[in-house]
């Protein structure tokens, strides 16, 4: 889903003519584990595409349902940021970097769609949506 394509014109000093850095970051519909209780944690996943020709960096996310939303690695440790090269896709997944949402104000129910904002150094704040999906059984 193309939420907010941006064209940011930046003259490059090294170039004899005018060149442009095209900032074009888009987000697919993602997913989030359903929950049965409030004030618990859940995890969110999404694919982010950098279709521009400049590097961008995901520096944070905020899902209004959660008291805090953090970028974490597969090991659960906090990540400061994630870099997306031009033409690349960043996948936030259960076995890689993803969103950790703590202290949920509401349950994430079957049929839910969570709006979350994603903050990028160049593209700014983009809105993404996470569709609820059943959580895997605990091992």
């Amino acid at each position, binding site marked *: 889903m193309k939420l907010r394509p941006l064209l940011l014109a930046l003259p490059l000093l090294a170039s004899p003519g005018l060149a442009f850095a095209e900032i074009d970051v888009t987000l697919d*519909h993602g997913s989030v584990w359903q929950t049965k209780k409030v004030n618990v944690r859940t995890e969110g996943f999404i694919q982010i595409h950098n279709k521009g020709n400049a590097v961008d960096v995901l520096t944070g996310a905020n899902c*209004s*349902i959660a008291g805090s939303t953090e970028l974490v690695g597969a090991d659960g440790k906090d990540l400061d940021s994630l870099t997306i090269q031009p033409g690349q896709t960043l996948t936030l997944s259960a076995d890689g970097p993803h969103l950790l949402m703590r202290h949920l*104000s*509401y349950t*994430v*129910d079957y*049929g*839910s*769609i*969570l*709006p979350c904002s994603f903050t990028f150094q160049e593209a700014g704040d983009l809105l993404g949506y996470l569709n609820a999906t059943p959580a895997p059984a605990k091992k």
Partner: protein
Amino acid sequence: MAAKLYLGTARYSSWSMRGWLMVHLAGLVAEEVFVPLAGGNSPAVKAVSPSGTVPYLEHEGARVWESLAIAEYCAEINPALWPEDRIARAHARAIASEMHAGFRNLRIAMPMNLGRDYAGLGQTPESLADVARIEAIWTETRESFGASGPYLFGATFNAADAMFAPIVARFITFAPPLGETTKAYCAAVRAHPLVAKWYDLAAKEPVSWQLEKYETLA
């Protein structure tokens, strides 16, 4: 800042469409819960909503049901949901209220279905009388207040447009005879980004949510 908006099947639930549009027009950020409708009284809806109906909004301690009440609540947050001018605002509230309370024959004869083409169906004397009244409302409103743009009150898609958006959807699906002014207004509403987004949501719903009684009219 947490909020939760309970909605019915996007494909069918015209009231949910109105509530969703109001919430988005106001800029509220809410977890949206689409509860599949079962046709008639739905236990799943009764379980989440005080009135047993959708839409139902919970926002920062406020609990709001009924589309018009949601519209007014959203307008407290973003007053631009209603026209700024007092006379225009009064007219907008009047036609929104008429929509909320009326046009039962049209709603029965032409139930909202965003995924079908039922052109020519549902045309009864009673439903066509409702169509005529709606066309009169739209024409009068556009002539009086809508010169600056394609919507009822001009350039801004507001709460009155949101109230009538599911009527536009019905007109697209059932294609009753309409005047050119009405057709132009329908095209403008259908092209609005939020309306388009709602159609997208409906298109992505599971096929298992579809109800035979709404899918087999033709």
